[in-house]
């Protein structure tokens, strides 16, 4: 795509940073990113069908490779939840499993060559396509705001309306009426910083990873064989390192979700 090295690289990258939006959707904040929505939904359905199919065919005897893999993932996530949350895991366990596998699959889209999906969609006349939903800040904030809603829901459920409000107004400092406002302000900051940090962490990691992939991919069109070779080596090295990053980020998102929700169950 990029023919000359310098101006072409900037254009190449800014082209790749554009989301696919329908012509009818408004610009800016309300723009609908069709690519993120499509890829994330497809991966979510893939995850559900895959685990459902394995669970349907599960045997108590010698498990096949697929069933063993699903069991390993399930037990790993369940063990993590068990470490953090001591209570009824019937909701939190599946939630953690969904978060972990879904975020992992969405992050794993980063490992596809950066030009592969845009190249395929270009055949169908679609110019911009970003394959990594978690490198879209809308996706990560959608997930973390859902976690915020769950935190609030479980706070109400565990403590009741009165109990939760009592905690919000008296928790860190004390019961004195003069301290109600500072208490509430601190609790509000604590509550709101959770989804922001959750979303920004995942987004920042995936966005940086994607940009480094693009910068390396810019070497392929730089025009010399030495740079092409460096591009291949760099792409491989960063790709292998990125496997670690995507797993860790999915793991952190899952663990922090569980930690936040189990904190909502705690009484002060």
């Amino acid at each position: 795509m990029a023919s000359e090295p310098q101006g072409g690289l900037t254009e190449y990258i800014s082209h790749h940073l554009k989301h696919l939006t329908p012509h009818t959707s408004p610009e800016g904040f309300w723009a609908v990113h069709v690519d993120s929505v499509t890829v994330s939904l497809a991966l979510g359905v893939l995850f559900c069908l895959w685990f459902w199919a394995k669970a349907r065919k599960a045997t108590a005897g010698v498990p096949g490779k697929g069933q063993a893999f699903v069991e390993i993932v399930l037990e790993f996530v369940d063990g993590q939840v068990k470490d953090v949350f001591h209570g009824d895991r019937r909701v939190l366990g599946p939630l953690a499993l969904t978060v972990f596998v879904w975020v992992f699959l969405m992050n794993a889209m980063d490992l596809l060559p950066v030009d592969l999906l845009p190249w395929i969609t270009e055949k169908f006349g679609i110019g911009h396509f970003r394959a990594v939903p978690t490198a879209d800040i809308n996706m990560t904030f959608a997930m973390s705001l859902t976690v915020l809603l769950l935190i609030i829901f479980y706070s109400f459920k565990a403590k009741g309306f009165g109990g939760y409000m009592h905690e919000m107004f008296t928790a860190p400092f004390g019961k004195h009426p003069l301290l109600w406002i500072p208490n509430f302000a601190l609790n509000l900051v604590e509550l709101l910083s959770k989804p922001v940090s959750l979303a920004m962490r995942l987004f920042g990691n995936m966005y940086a990873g994607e940009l480094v992939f693009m910068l390396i991919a810019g070497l392929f069109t730089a025009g010399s064989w030495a740079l092409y070779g460096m591009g291949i080596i760099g792409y491989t090295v960063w790709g292998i390192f990125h496997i670690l990053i995507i797993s860790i980020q999915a793991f952190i998102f899952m663990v922090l979700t569980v930690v936040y929700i189990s904190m909502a169950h705690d009484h002060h």
Partner: protein
Amino acid sequence: MEAIVQIAQIQGFTAIALGLIIGLGALGACIGIGVMGSKFLEAAARQPELVPLLQGRMFLLAGLIDAAFLIGVALAMYFAVANPLLSALTAK
């Protein structure tokens, strides 16, 4: 001529800022990872039976420590390839 000077100035300052963002971020993250890794190895040497328990937490913390640095890198990359401060000038 005036515009070229201004563009060059913005580019120069942006380059310095990028170096500071990535450099200081990497410094902090590396010190953090180093301190945590050394403590992990110490703990593993003292009580090898705790390694599986500690390993998961170490990776969790490694990701947490790395996160702020990588957000900085993402921001720096964004400024490197599509500088919004520059495009505000060139749009005029």
